[in-house]
């Protein structure tokens, strides 16, 4: 997958999520993100939704999967740029029970 969606600043990895986060996109992000998480030292993972217009339950699974991985290594996960629509899906999918909601 296009590595341009991944930005590393120190120990922080920012993932610029695509316009549509469906099963197809989620699978690509999952494998590329896990490769980085396995090979580089990441203390904080940021999912940046500012360019995301569409998401479905596959996006929820992908986010929770990365969350478990990063937490297991003692790191933190943040969500930014969340639109009202995406926020509603994250809430319905139980993501906010794991990853705190941030005021923007």
């Amino acid at each position, binding site marked *: 997958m296009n590595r341009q969606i991944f930005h590393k600043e120190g120990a922080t990895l920012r993932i610029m999520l695509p316009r*549509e986060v*469906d*099963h*197809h996109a*989620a*699978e690509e992000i*999952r494998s590329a993100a896990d490769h980085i998480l396995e090979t580089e030292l990441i203390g904080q993972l940021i999912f940046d939704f500012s360019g995301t217009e*569409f998401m*479905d*339950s*596959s996006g*929820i*699974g*992908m986010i*929770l*999967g990365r969350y478990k991985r990063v937490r297991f290594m003692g790191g933190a996960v943040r969500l930014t740029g969340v639109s009202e*629509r995406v926020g509603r*899906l994250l809430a*319905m*999918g*139980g993501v906010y029970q794991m990853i705190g909601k941030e005021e923007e």
Partner: protein
Amino acid sequence: MREEHHMKLEMESRSENEGLARTVVAAFLLRMNPTVEEMNDVKTAVSEAVTNSIIHGYGNEVHKIILSADILEDCITVTVEDFGRGIPDIERAMEPMYTTCPALERSGMGFSFMEAFMDELHVTSSVGKGTVVRMKKRIGREKAGNGSYGSAD
């Protein structure tokens, strides 16, 4: 006047076609002059059903999915059909957070999203034969002039 429209698309169960399915139904839905919210609701539901056929129905093998949509007056009905494994216990499958594929990072929220975003959801399935998901939504319940998708024809 009685408004009636029909479309049908046969496609392969490739994950690239999830976007195709959403786009086709979205374009079809435009003639109902939906709000942005209604459009997103239908797109999410279509995406969930097609993804399920790809992952669960066919286990990521490439076979046939039939997507159809019907507009009757102010309602759209979308049907997603596969000829795959089928669902042994539909009631259980439809429970929130229930998934048979946790290893694939499924959240188990697909049917819940379809239920939440559409007005009606009917699932029929037969093990070894396939699954049909039919969902219906009334468009235009929300007040007009509120973030709607531009002109109707």
